[in-house]
């Protein structure tokens, strides 16, 4: 499985100290909880170890490390084992928390980290594109969400207004 190779490469990067930690998000992350839905790329959220003497974080060491191991750069993506991988820094407190609270999962003996279902659903609500709304509906229909936990995530990140709007649009028929 090519995806397994991607996970091995990302794990190697964490072991070698290039990144601090990581977690899978997006459609691939959602597949850990839901039925698979076609996607073209993998979103991997990462936190960097700050370089000594620098306040700026740079993806350069990551690019250098992976290209030296055979990955190639295509626009915003790094192509690893035929999969376009997008490495994303946390874009705000919600993603930071999602990264912090991500769960460990085994994929054929390879350990990896994935956002919780509640965080994936909250991020989908916050991002708000049509495909994110569809994913959020999938999470709700699957019954996999811990409703109390999801509610707390929404409260902590001021997403209740957005949730109300989503409820009115899709759940109040």
């Amino acid at each position, binding site marked *: 499985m090519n995806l397994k190779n991607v996970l091995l490469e990302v794990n190697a990067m964490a072991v070698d100290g290039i990144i601090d930690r990581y977690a899978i998000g997006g459609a*691939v992350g959602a597949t850990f909880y839901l*039925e698979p839905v*076609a996607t073209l790329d993998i979103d991997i959220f990462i936190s960097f170890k700050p370089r000594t003497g620098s306040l700026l974080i740079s993806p350069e060491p990551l690019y250098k490390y992976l290209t030296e191991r055979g990955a190639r750069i295509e626009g915003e993506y790094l192509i690893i084992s035929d999969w376009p991988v997008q490495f994303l820094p946390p874009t705000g407190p919600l993603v930071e928390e999602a990264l912090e609270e991500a769960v460990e999962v085994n*994929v*054929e003996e390879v350990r990896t980290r994935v956002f919780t279902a509640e965080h994936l659903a909250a991020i989908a609500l916050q991002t708000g594109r049509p495909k994110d709304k569809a994913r959020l509906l999938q999470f709700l229909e699957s019954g996999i969400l811990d409703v109390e936990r999801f509610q707390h995530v929404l409260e902590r990140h001021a997403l209740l207004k957005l949730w109300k709007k989503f409820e009115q649009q899709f759940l109040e028929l």
Partner: protein
Amino acid sequence: MTFEISQIIKSKEAFRKQLAARPVAEKLRVLEELRKRAIAIAVSREEMKQRTAVATSPSALFTA
């Protein structure tokens, strides 16, 4: 087999649940297959678009 829409929706839901409950590694393999198909569809759509563009361009009409 039925054409009863409520029954069809129910069985679709059941199939989705069954897929969701499969082991993660198996679901990721399905994801890889879906990606290959999505790419193949995108490529053939692009080729079709180009063929249509050639066929309807004025120069193509004159050389036909």
